């Protein structure tokens, strides 16, 4: 059983939306900063997954 790029992109989307929810709701500035860190991590994960699974057309 293996998983492809779609699963990683879906996971990155879930993490991004959790971070977005936190960044929109929290009133404490530190919590907003931590939610933004979560969102950047989701974007990084997406970039790494795409670079692992796909070759750019040269």
């Amino acid at each position, binding site marked *: 059983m293996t998983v492809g790029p779609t699963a990683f992109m879906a996971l990155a989307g879930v993490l991004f939306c*959790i971070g977005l929810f936190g960044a*929109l709701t929290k009133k404490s500035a530190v*919590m907003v900063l931590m939610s933004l860190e979560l969102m950047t991590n989701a974007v990084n994960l997406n970039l790494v997954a795409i670079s692992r699974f796909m070759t750019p*057309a040269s």
Partner: protein
Amino acid sequence: MPDSVAVVPFVILAALAVGGGAMMVLTRNVVHAAFWLLEVMMAVSGLFMLLSAGFLALIQMMVYAGAVSVLVLFTVMLTLRRREDAERSLDLSWSAGLIALGVFVAVGAAVVSFVPAVVTAPALTPGVAEFGRTLFTERALPFEIASVVLLIALVGAVWWAGGDDR
């Protein structure tokens, strides 16, 4: 390289990451939230290693799990006067939940309908040695620009925190 990865470590790491993120948003204590964020960072580092990006996994461990979480904990513990101040209200709102859910539906639709132009996986993983050689030869200019930007940020932070006698 094969064009897919094993499902068992992916499911374990994904559950750790999503559960840690949800606990980070749902906990009341800021210090607990910082530790949940640390757990999410370590799970994402494991996912990087699963994606054969060992250098990025190492950098994720050093920068996020090492530096950023320590920075957040320092910020929290230096700004709180009393231990009870770490407890915050939960601050949940329906409108923000609807916005996040809408973004998730849009992202999910985009992921499901995503058709890459070239689906073949790269032939081999570039190692740390090739990465360093590329970074210091043909990508030297972006590297230097990034270092200058970091230097400007450092000087600006020192100037900004310089006190009243500037």
